[in-house]
């Protein structure tokens, strides 16, 4: 069973991540206030971004499943949710690690973090829904429906918490980091930060694609096994 594409992707992902690590720790500028702690921001944003990208992939796969009833879309939706959940968990963890030294708290209910939390809960609900259904067709249909409905509400959640914040002034007004403004020691700071960030996002997106592909293959193989079992029995 030669899986050339998979292996190639894995190697590329690995390489990209290593390069990203290098960029983040060696090349990226030092931030004025937070110093080295700020570097986790690159991973945090990249991982969060992938977590939400996965949701979008699930949405598309869900819609396509309902239109075509083809199992491949269901597999794609499920796989994307699982990997998205993984990335969001990492996102929340990196966010906490960053927040503690900078804001002196593990968590805050601002627009972005709340949306991350809600999305994570949606992923969990999606997986629990699937777990509670035996009939594969119903499982696929219901998950697709939930995937679509829940995707719609996530931007609304973001909007609602966002309004909340504009009414109440930022609780951490003292820290410039809270407003997303970072200052760098060297002159080309912002540009370097931008490039490092972009690279990290790309690297982790490739990791996501690699993992997604692996998960889809796994599910397809499981399907084949089930079908063979059926044929042997009946």
């Amino acid at each position, binding site marked *: 069973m030669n899986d050339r594409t998979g292996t190639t992707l894995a190697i590329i992902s690995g390489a990209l991540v290593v390069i990203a690590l290098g960029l983040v720790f060696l090349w990226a500028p030092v931030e004025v206030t937070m110093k080295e702690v700020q570097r986790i921001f690159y991973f945090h944003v990249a991982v969060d971004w992938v977590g939400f990208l996965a949701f979008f992939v699930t949405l598309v796969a869900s819609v396509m499943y309902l239109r075509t009833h083809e199992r491949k879309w269901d597999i794609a939706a499920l796989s994307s949710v699982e990997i998205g959940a993984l990335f969001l968990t990492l996102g929340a963890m990196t966010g906490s690690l960053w927040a503690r030294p900078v804001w002196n708290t593990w968590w805050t209910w601002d627009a972005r973090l709340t949306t991350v939390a809600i*999305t994570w809960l*949606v992923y969990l609900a999606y997986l629990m*829904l699937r777990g*509670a259904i035996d009939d594969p067709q*119903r499982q696929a249909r219901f998950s697709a*429906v939930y995937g679509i409905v829940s995707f719609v509400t996530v931007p609304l959640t973001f909007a609602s918490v966002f309004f909340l914040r504009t009414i109440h002034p930022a609780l951490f007004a003292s820290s410039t980091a809270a407003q997303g403004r970072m200052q760098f020691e060297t002159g080309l700071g912002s540009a370097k930060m931008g490039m490092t960030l972009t690279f990290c996002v790309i690297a982790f997106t490739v990791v996501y694609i690699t993992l997604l592909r692996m998960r889809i293959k796994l599910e397809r193989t499981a399907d084949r096994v089930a079908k063979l079992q059926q044929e042997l029995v009946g």
Partner: protein
Amino acid sequence: MTNGTRNTYFVLRVPSGTSMTYLRKIAAIIAKDIAAELRTREMLSSMGVFSILVIIVFNFALELTERQIVETTIPGALWVTIIFAGMLGLNRSLSVELDKGCLDGLLLTPVDRSAIFFGKAFGNALFMFVVEVILLPLFVVFFNVPLIQPWVMAILVLGTVGYAGVGTLLSSMAVNTRAREVLLPILLFPVAMPMLIAAVKATSGAMTGLPVSEWQQWLSLLIVFDVILITVSVMVFDYVVEE
């Protein structure tokens, strides 16, 4: 499908009688649910008792010593009560259809699936309204807050309609799984979050007498939530019920 002169005011936009028939089917479904509930009163009594229990618990749980604390916490307490009581109603309403295969009975008929959805959703909203009508005076009495106002009622309506809409959709899935009632809160809470936040903030604004301009974005958010979620729910409901 003419019905004499009684409903002439509906005739305006409708070329044939189809719109009327559609609405009548929805009304028939709601009427059936009301009739069944009046026989047993199971749903309303459990929702009602639950609400009272929650009020009592909140009364002891929240330190309502200062006026300001009351004003900031009561809207949240009110909506949490509504959300949970509503969940009881949603579960029961869809379980009834599952019992004896009644949902299949409905699906056998030539009625449009969206009519089934609207019938169940508005029925559920109606039951929630009944509970809220009881809840508001209780809150006023026990917590001494000015909740009986037109704006507050408008917010209740807007929030309930959206919640009942998406709740009906998700409940129709949840009752068809092994986990049944347990799954509904897991599915519904993340999805209802924007509505909950908006409803609480709007209620807070209305209750404390702030001018509408101060909190009208929450109203807008509620309306947007309702429109988007109900539209999406109707569109996908077909896929939930068709095997």
